């Protein structure tokens, strides 16, 4: 085959490799920066890269000048991620907690749809996220109360927020670490995981437990939250309307 074509294919594949290494940045790596420029300027190169990524079950979501290539894996593909792989022996309640914290961090950082587009870096802290979720829970608790301030007659008691509510915010173990039985532990572990995936950075100059959320996170949330989760929620809603509840 023509050596030019081979070189182009090799460069495209290199760019896809960079997409799978989310902690690398084009500003630090000249080769990365060149490839990124080519991606953004040449449509042929872009098509080639997208095709290779597609073959590897990865969808290229954006080519950000500072963040680099942001790739979103297909859930059934080779780069897909399952929470149960993240930690051994994960109980269903813990899995829900981890998922809920992810959603809460995203909702806290980007409350409105336009926030998902804006190019400002958001900062969150562990206690911030915890307070946010508990505030939401207080509101939900008020919803279950009727006019006279008591719990309504037909309230449900197995909702997700009650699991979070039952757990205390902070609890230390004997050697001053955070115990697993407190929400700050889980929030910290999610934020640390995001740091490993190149989505966040520690911002300890603002105090312990502060993190900066990068553009990569914002772009992943915009792509990820969009379709799959939204449709799933619509499904659940449709199902609950179709089957009347036992009390109803």
């Amino acid at each position, binding site marked *: 085959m023509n050596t030019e074509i081979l070189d182009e294919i090799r460069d495209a594949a290199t760019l896809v490799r960079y*997409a*799978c290494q*989310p902690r690398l940045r084009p500003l630090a790596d000249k080769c990365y920066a060149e490839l990124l420029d080519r991606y953004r300027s040449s449509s042929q190169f872009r098509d080639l890269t997208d095709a290779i990524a597609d073959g590897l079950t990865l969808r290229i979501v954006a080519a950000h000048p500072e963040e680099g290539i942001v*790739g*979103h*894996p297909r859930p059934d593909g080779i*780069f897909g*991620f*399952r*929470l149960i792989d993240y930690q051994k022996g994960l109980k*269903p*309640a813990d*899995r*829900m907690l*981890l*998922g*809920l914290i*992810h959603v809460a961090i*995203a*909702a806290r950082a980007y*409350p*409105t*749809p*336009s926030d*998902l587009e804006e190019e400002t870096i958001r900062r969150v802290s562990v206690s911030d996220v915890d307070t946010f979720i508990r*505030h*939401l829970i207080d509101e939900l608790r008020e919803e279950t109360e009727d006019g*006279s301030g*008591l*719990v309504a*007659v037909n*309230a*449900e*008691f197995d*909702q*997700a927020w*009650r699991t979070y*509510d*039952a*757990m*205390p*915010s*902070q*609890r230390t173990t004997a050697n001053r670490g955070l*115990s697993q*039985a*407190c929400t700050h532990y889980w929030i910290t572990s999610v934020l640390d995981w995001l740091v490993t*995936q190149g*989505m966040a950075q520690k911002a300890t100059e603002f105090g312990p437990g502060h993190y900066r959320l990068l553009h*990569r996170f914002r772009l*992943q949330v*915009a*792509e*990820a*939250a*969009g379709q*799959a*989760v939204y449709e*799933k*929620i619509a499904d659940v809603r449709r199902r609950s309307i179709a089957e009347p509840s036992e009390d109803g």
Partner: protein
Amino acid sequence: MSLSSADDTSTVDAFSLLTSDERELLSGDISSGVNVVEAMRLVAEPTFIRRVTVLARSAPLHAMDIKESWQQFTEDRYDLRGLALAALDAVVMRQGLEDEATSQDVIDLLARLAYRAAPDLPSTDHEAVARFVLKELLNDRNAGAKFLVHYSDYREGHQRVPLSFHLLEEAPGRRGQVVLRASVQAINALIGGLDLEVEDAQLAMDAVLRAQISRGQWGRAEESATKSMLLSVALAEKVRVLLAETEHDVRTVDWAERVPALLEAARSHLEDRLGAEDGLLDHMREARDNAGDDEVRATCLRIMALLGRCNQRHGELHGTVLDALRTFLDAQIDQRFRPIAQLRLVDLSDEILAPIVRMTAADAGDIAALFAEAVAGPVVRRLPRLAELYQLLLAPAREPLGIIPEDDEPDITDAADDAQPFSEAERGAARAVLSTALGRPRRLSELLREAAAHGRTVADLVALSVVWAFAPEDGDDDDEIPMEFEDLFATRLLVLDDDTPLRHDGYSGADLLVVPVGSAGERGAV
């Protein structure tokens, strides 16, 4: 007019004896006993249910008594409920101020109270009680989770409602140390189970305070002043949280109606209170100047100090409330008046977080996990490299497998390929020496002397062969005896022991006799 038996007639008779006035009095309902239907209606009223929840919230305090029997301190000398209430009081008095109560403060206080209750017992007992009470209040038994009690709601049939609440919680303090904080439910329980809206209770409290002062009931006046301050603490927290949320996301707080109404009520209420407390302070000052009793004056000063603090807090809060509108307008400009978003973007708070949090735990688990998995980005699984895998498998085990030291491991090599410890020449010489016994019986000492001429190794070989032939080992391990002397010892030579001791340099034991097989029967021949 007989007093005779039949009941009907006697009742009618008594009635007819009454005057008209008495008959009027009796014309009301004379139903006997409590009407069961009435009672059922009472139980369905909200006030009743509220009282039930209040009583339910004091359950942990009572449960402490039952658990007392599990403890190591002396039973039945301490009033655990009273100590628990004292702990709550101590925490709430300092909550939100400069020096909040730490666990050590509370334990010291409780130990001192326990000492007063039982001065004859050792101080370890007092400390044990203090720690026990504090741990119960923090619900250490369930790792700091909320207390869970159930009550029955009889409004529509029956429903069993769970009630979960904290009494005391640990939290980071202003200076980084761990302090204790009482929850809102605990504060209400302290205030004698009122559980009403903050503002109303405060007005009631003021009236009580004034009445008590005018009647000179100083002790209870101080108590009311304490309660006033507690209520101020709760109110301050409410407003602060509201404003903080507004600054973050305007939409989560209803600024159209609810919040302006609340702020207006709070503002006017605060103005009332500042006025009322000023009035009270003047009142107290007057009372202090005219009081005769020293103790009364001391109480008065205490209450005034308390009211002064309250006043200060209200003043700060008032300022914040006045700023609230500006906070709202700034937040609104910042957040809401922006260019319209692209259609494909989803509203995370309303459309994702809110539904998820309201779903049942099972559904929420699936969907939230889906979100988390999608957001993570590409995760490259680490595949083990085969070359490294090979080395890892063959690496020696890190833990000791048993007591077998490595030296005892047998060689897994063929005996035939083994490097012979004796060379050809040596073996030949030994064979020659041993063969001399084929002619006539020889003693081991003689053989050794002959073999020694060829060298020490040959002598060793001879000795070993003879000894092995005399009593071969049962084991399978191949030792140094070469098999080639088998032919000599198996059929043609015999080794006997007649208890003669061996006298030869370097060897000791029995001087064995090597006899040729043929002559075994002929003993005595030399």
